[in-house]
């Protein structure tokens, strides 16, 4: 497959060797013929290394689909997804699983943890699955960063929703992944816990150089990112750099969502 050389609707070049992940002409459609629905309708986007990007858009805009395809949880109908320099297209189920395990981190909206494992065990889970040793120093750094030092032996049932999401965030970081995907990570949290979690994600980018891609519909959450990409009807329709809550809200109004 040829190297990506197209440009986005906004003219920004995405032929960028520093991109942690990117898509080219990503199309995802369901059904066929007249019933065909395009969740993604030609999305070309790149996510820079060491940056925190938010994906926004109204319900049904395709933002979650984009995230799932980037993460190898779902496959494209056509187009290409790249992680680092490597195309995910055509990879087998097992290869995708190993990629997720070794090179990606995940924070979902809810149900991020295994109820049978303690916080510490949940954090180490991807390493244990890979049979990789735990880097103690890094583990403690991450745990300190999420402020869970005193809760490591607790099971998820003994943790608050905010604490559970921070455990999930720590798990996402512990493998030093190339990229962390967060799907509405604050969606089920109160504003205070949500702010704590976002502050942590911000620190992960600033202090550890982590790359994060987050889907959200919350302008406040998006304001923590370095850049916001707006989706509507399966296409990228706008983009904001250095967003604030206000600029995000303005953009959303402009887009009529």
């Amino acid at each position: 497959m040829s190297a990506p050389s197209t440009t986005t609707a906004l003219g920004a070049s995405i032929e960028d060797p520093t991109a942690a992940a990117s898509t080219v002409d990503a199309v995802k459609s369901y059904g066929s013929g007249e019933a065909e629905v395009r969740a993604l309708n030609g999305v070309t986007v790149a996510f820079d290394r060491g940056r925190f990007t938010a994906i926004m858009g109204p319900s049904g805009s395709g933002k979650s689909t984009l995230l799932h395809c980037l993460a190898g949880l779902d496959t494209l109908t056509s187009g290409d997804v790249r992680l680092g320099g490597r195309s995910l297209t055509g990879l087998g189920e097992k290869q995708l699983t190993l990629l997720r395990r070794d090179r990606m981190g995940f924070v979902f909206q809810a149900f991020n943890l295994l109820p049978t494992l303690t916080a510490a065990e949940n954090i180490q889970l991807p390493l244990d699955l890979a049979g990789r040793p735990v880097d103690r120093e890094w583990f403690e750094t991450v745990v300190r960063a999420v402020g869970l030092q005193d809760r490591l032996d607790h099971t998820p049932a003994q943790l608050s929703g905010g604490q559970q999401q921070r455990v999930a965030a720590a798990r996402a970081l512990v493998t030093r992944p190339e990229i962390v995907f967060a799907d509405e990570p604050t969606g089920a949290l109160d504003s205070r816990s949500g702010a704590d979690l976002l502050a942590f994600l911000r620190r992960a980018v600033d202090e550890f150089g982590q790359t994060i891609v987050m889907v959200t519909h919350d302008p406040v959450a998006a304001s923590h990112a370095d850049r916001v990409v707006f989706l509507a009807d399966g296409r990228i329709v706008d983009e904001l750099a250095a967003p604030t809550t206000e600029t995000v809200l303005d953009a959303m109004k402009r887009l009529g969502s």
Partner: protein
Amino acid sequence: MRKVILKGLLARKLRLALTAVSISLGVAFVTGTFVLGDTMTATFDQLYEGLTEGTDVTVRGESAFTDTTTLGATKPFDADVLPTVQDVDGVAAAAGSVTGYALILDKDGEPVQPGGAPTLGASYTTDPALAGGFTLRDGAAPTGPQDVVLDAATAKAHGFVPGDPVTILLTDGPRDFTVTGIAGFGDADNLAGATIATFDLATAQDALGRTGVYDTIAVRGESGVDADELRDRVAAALPDGLEAVTSAEVVAESSAAVADALGFFTTGLLGFAAISLLVGALIIWNTFSILVAQRTRELALLRAVGASRRQVRFSVVAEAFVIGLVSAALGLGLGLGVAAGLRAALAVVGIEVPTTTLQVEPRTIAAALLVGVVVTVLAALLPARQATRVAPVAALRAVDAPARPVGRTRIAAGALLTVLGAAGLAAAMVEEGRLGLAAVAMLLTLAGVLTLAPPIATVVTRLIGAPLARLGGTTAQLARRNALRSPRRTANTATALMIGLALVSTVTVVASSMKASVADVIADSSRADFILKGAGQASPGLPPQLAAELRGVDGVGTVSEMRFASAQVDGATTFVSAVDPATAETAADLEVTSGSVADLGSGSVLVSDKVAQAKGWTVGDTVPITYAQTGEQSLTVVGTYANTALLGSDYVTDLAVHDANGGTALDVAVLVVAADGADLDDVRAGLETVVDAYPVAQLDDEASFTESQAQTIDQLLAIVTMLLALAVIIALLGIVNTLALSVFERTRELGLLRAVGMTRRQVRAVVRWEAVIVAVLGALLGAVLGLAFGAALTRGLAGEGLSVLAIPGGRLALYVLFAALAGVLAAIGPARRAARVDVLHAVAAA
């Protein structure tokens, strides 16, 4: 409500099928047992009716009871009675007949020995009206001392046609005859599997040891004479000790005897069926508990929109009812297969059941439906109660309620039962002969362990999970946590397997103790160099002529034969052995504790220490022993002995007393001691030349005898294990069911695991490890219980010949290993399903 129930059932077809199978296997067992029993009864009834056709009244010796060792033979009586009977007013015809032992040898000289059925010799009834269903199909009736008519089944199977020579083994040795005819019994080729050789009356009397006597006289009345009236008239003319019975009475008696024997047999099979049903009920209970827990939100929603508690309970019970009905119907169909299977299994050990169409009585159908529905509904009652406790508000709760902890009362009760049971088992192991205590302690322990199962499961799962987690890494660790998260579920699943394994292990311990004990008894108390017994399970014994011929072999010092009769003492049936007092002690050590074997003679008896102590008898006392043919005999105790294991009886008489009282004229065993200085190989060669003419005899030395006894025990063990295997299979289905339900319930977790990088192989491993943990948990508990049960039973049976307790450790370990492998098999389906979980669907549903 009906729609809700039906839709619920249809939405879970696979689960419904799995659940139904666990009950239907038990139902199939019940059905199979009834069908087989009914079929056998019907077959025998038909036979007896056919046999007595044409005969109105039978004259025979009076019996005190029906002796099974002689097939209910009555005492022969003087042939002079016949003219007296013929002279009775109203008698149209009367003919005497004799019956005895006659073993046909096939053309290769091998015995035609049917399994379980007798080998009969009889006199040929010349009056066709009195012959019943017995009719000549080919050739001619026997008329001379060389003539014999064979039953059609034997003739067909071994290619005999009129004119062929045939050798028949009689109690006085082999004799050569010529086949003059082939006879059938109505449509049947033989009588309930028995082989029959018929001779003319004089030859039969001579060949069967009945010279000048008859066993029975068949009487036909003149037309118009009522059978009861005829019986009374004949009876009035008979001397003392003889009786007259109508054919209706004979048929009723025989049917009752068959029903009796079958009753024992079917009760045993129903016991095994009950075990399967118990295990099935455990599975149903567990399944419904899980279903109710999983459907908490659905049930709460029903309650929230206005369903009453009663309606909710009804919905669960109704589901159970439908499952029960489906299982029962399935089981009924399977039961016919089971009946055929049981018949085949019995044939393997030599108990052949005559083939007729399988009898399906309305009672069988009713029992199957009742058992299926009642067991299923009962097992679902507790979960149904749990369902009514779901509060409507639970529909709104996001988090599932945590597993209910086990109540303190339950733990206390379980601990008490277990401790009492364990103490009882320990006591039964320490003191011999406490069989009752052992049985009660077994039940207490089982009840205790079942009550305590969840905490026990937690502890044991931790124990066996730890090494597995080291062995299997993260996947095994996750599996262990999963097994621990719902102790009730794990415990219920494992205990189903535990029950089956406990029973198999118990039987294994008892069987290996039996083998060790037999070897021990032979080594300790047999002084014989060679032992001869009837070959095969079904052989009733050896013609006494064999022992007589063995005495003539060069180098043989002593030949001592043993016989076996059943008799009654104080109304209870017991066995009486008979030995030759002159030689018995040379061949075997009875461990005489008072008196002496040599004092045995007419009118005397040896009594075992155990019985002597229980009844307070000592040497010189008189003991009343009732024989079937001769009634009560007063025998004087001339000695007591300790070694009951060798002979297997508590009474010993000399051979003459045995014969005089109508005991079987066959030796159950013949012991041979070589003369001093004789070369054993030479002696064996000499013995073999004699035995060659008696293919029914098996010649063994001590080692090979022990070995062949062990084989017999192994065969029995195999059958019992097979019958228990059904319960084990049901328990394994339970593991499949529980795992499938757990996988279903953990869809989101599995999705999460897959999302963060668990491979499909790892997902399968997690499910597989959990199955292995549950299976090993159940098997381990079962093996430990079985070990204790078996040890207690063996010690309890010490007085019945189980003198040695042997623990088959390797075999029990093998069971646990098999269970682990079975766990892997049980996990295949659920593991595949777990690996197929759609990651996106699972995480997106969050």
